[in-house]
């Protein structure tokens, strides 16, 4: 396959940035999207150019490090797939592909396609945990948990924190990410004592980071590589409103 790539290049946080066009030839349909970029980068390095910086690590769809907006869609059009698991066989020979970083004020561009997602860590710091110091836990079987609750909690807990939800949201909202954690812990008995304070603190932190508000458009869940369901946001809202009543 031969492809034309239009890639966002930005040398640093203060650079204005621009789209740059590259040709990539002899792409195998069995390559992953990132391997295709590896091939481009190997060539750029040898030619003395700056390779395209992008985040990636596990390359098996679980670490949440990779992520780029491909042809206008976070992680590309293949559903429930991270960028690293997207393969070139889904593109046409001769196609032009635009590649951009996640765009949101709370995710400033570090370089090219690399963005700073530390805002997510700070949302977790605000309350995305159960306060239980090591060594203080009771026996695991002392509190049974309904299987349905454990399964639903897992569905929310499977979030990989990649930020595609923010990238896709027309409002730049981090609601799906925040709601996933709130829902995960809110569904389990272990999460009950801090349920309301957690929801309030995390939502307030989300606001403080400068993310937009949710308008329930569903763009987030549509691009989410782990398919985090939209009703997590309803649960977050419910916990948040309850917390504010008190």
């Amino acid at each position: 396959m031969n492809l034309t790539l239009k890639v966002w290049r930005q040398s640093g946080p203060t650079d204005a940035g621009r789209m740059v066009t590259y040709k990539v030839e002899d792409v195998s349909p069995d390559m992953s999207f990132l391997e295709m970029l590896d091939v481009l980068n190997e060539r750029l390095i040898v030619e003395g150019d700056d390779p395209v910086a992008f985040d990636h690590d596990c390359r098996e769809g679980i670490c949440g490090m990779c992520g780029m907006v491909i042809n206008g869609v976070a992680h590309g059009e293949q559903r429930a797939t991270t960028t690293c698991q997207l393969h070139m066989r889904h593109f046409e020979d001769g196609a032009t592909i635009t590649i951009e970083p996640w765009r949101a004020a709370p995710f400033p561009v570090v370089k090219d396609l690399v963005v700073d997602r530390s805002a997510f860590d700070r949302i977790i710091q605000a309350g995305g945990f159960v306060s239980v110091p090591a060594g203080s836990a009771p026996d695991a079987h002392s509190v049974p948990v309904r299987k349905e609750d454990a399964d639903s909690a897992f569905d929310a807990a499977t979030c990989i924190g990649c930020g595609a939800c923010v990238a896709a949201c027309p409002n730049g909202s981090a609601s799906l990410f925040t709601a996933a954690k709130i829902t995960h812990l809110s569904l389990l008995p272990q999460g009950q004592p801090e349920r309301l304070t957690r929801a309030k603190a995390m939502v307030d932190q989300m606001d403080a980071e400068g993310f937009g508000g949710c308008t329930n458009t569903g763009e987030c869940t549509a691009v989410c590589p782990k398919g985090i369901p939209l009703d997590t946001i309803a649960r977050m809202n419910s916990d948040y409103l309850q917390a504010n009543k008190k």
Partner: protein
Amino acid sequence: MKFVEGSEIRDTRAPEGPIEERWEKRKFAAKLVNPANKRKLNVIVVGTGLAGGSAAATLGELGYNVKSFCYQDSPRRAHSIAAQGGINAAKNYRGDGDSIYRLFYDTVKGGDFRARESNVYRLAQVSVNIIDQAVAQGVPFAREYGGLLDTRSFGGAQVSRTFYARGQTGQQLLLGAYQALERQVAAGTVQMFTRHEMLDLIVADGRARGIIVRDMVTGEIERHVADAVVLATGGYGNVFFLSTNAKGCNTTAIWRAHERGAYFANPCYTQIHPTCIPVSGEYQSKLTLMSESLRNDGRVWVPLRKGDDRAPGDIPEDERDYYLERIYPAFGNLVPRDIASRAAKNVCDEGRGVGPGGLGVYLDFRDAINRLGRDAVEKKYGNLFEMYERITGENPYDVPMRIYPAVHYTMGGLWVDYDLQSTIPGLFVIGEANFSDHGANRLGASALMQGLADGYFVLPTTIGDYLAAGPFGEVDEEAVAEAELKVRSRIERLLAVNGTRTPDSFHRELGRLMWDHCGMERTEESLRKALERIPELRKEFWENVKVSGTAEELNQVLEKAGRVADFFDLAELMCLDALVRTESCGGHFRAESQDADGEALRDDEHFAHVSAWEYSPEGVPVLHKEPLEYEYVKMTQRSYK
């Protein structure tokens, strides 16, 4: 490569007496740190996986002043997150005869009698606390309808002691540790440094006193001093370039610590996982593991005839070789990882492999689908089949999967005593980065157990014994400056070469060399060849590598180049270690040491020891042997026939 044999080395920290009392005794004997003093004691933890994340969080909870470092953009991304199968614990919730002693026994035996009994027993003891801790944190383990935790049997174990959270156990456990860590960041006890890479260890007055790091965003070289340093930087499987590790996994932190005096134990012990998706082309950047559970229902086979290139569906039953069932009738497709891997390699070496380059074997679900129905198979393995199809474009319901072994885990690592302290006082090493608990072969679902045992329960106790004598005062400025200068000059050197080959192209070549000569099967000849070739390649690297960009920016090429440079040195030590250990044991198979049936043959008379290597700047490493004694588990030869 030359080496010399040095004095014997011994663990002096494990107490004497009955094995089940040793950890209690050690905990009681360990000096305590006055709570008011903890705040004044600084601890650096490098790495935020299961071991590092849980350790940093727990040390913060105890009141120490912690600095935590990771190279990723968030501590939540460490590669522990990718572990699929589960975590072992001797809870015996099933009443199926499991016990701490049985987990201990299985681990020692599974490790092919190359692990320390005291350590393994403690691991089995602590395993039960891990599950309690994780559940209390809200880790959504699989449950049964009664609301209690579900467990399964894993990796050929005869008891169901593996707790799991679908196929994402590592993720869920890591997020638990990550959340505990972020809680401490919020509490102000832990200071987090993301996108920071450790490039050297500061050793002053015989103690580990800090690290030199590079801020990967600005390129700034920073000094961080402390009273103790904990390395939790994972394994070094990426020395093979292609492995199931994350792309960023590297040996730099432990290798630099090794250069500063920490002994490196059993570097040649690598685990090759039998069920990975095969390489599809030259561009391949990593290998993806398919859960071992697939072997419960899939049948492994290759064509009987060499070079048979018919489509798998066209090959009749009597022209298929279900080789695992043929060679190991008792265990069949469920033989342990090392055995399944080597058998796959053998049939491919015979020219009977399938797929691109003949490097693959079939894992066929046809019979399972016929027997159980497609729905039942989908329920059990649906997500794995989907993942396979996403990567290969082939549908495993119609065509058999192709699998091939891939490097997965490294049992070797920095030598530590019972306290998890290395040979440098004040340098502690935990998780996959140390060598301690798995011997020559790790059992499935034991890596998560060890990482969390070290981080939540063992290290926080033992490090107190060391820190009780602290704070250790000002750090000698000369030592800090020397380490910083070394880091800076190395970066300058890498940038100055300005050759024509990328770091990745060297890494690929090194990886290929290691896979061919120090991979699933090692011979004296192959190892000698590798030991000849590695220095040549390293020389070429330092003369011809091309690192674009500058040191004062985000520069992924520079990061990569530094890591590859360390892989060269490590690769050499691995080959040397593999050459010296002329026996076969666990993940280390020396072709010269096999029985009449081609099975691994241990040599307990000469090799019942840990090989701990001391670095020598002159290139003549010193081998220190730690004799292994088995008081509780009698040494036997493994057999799966």
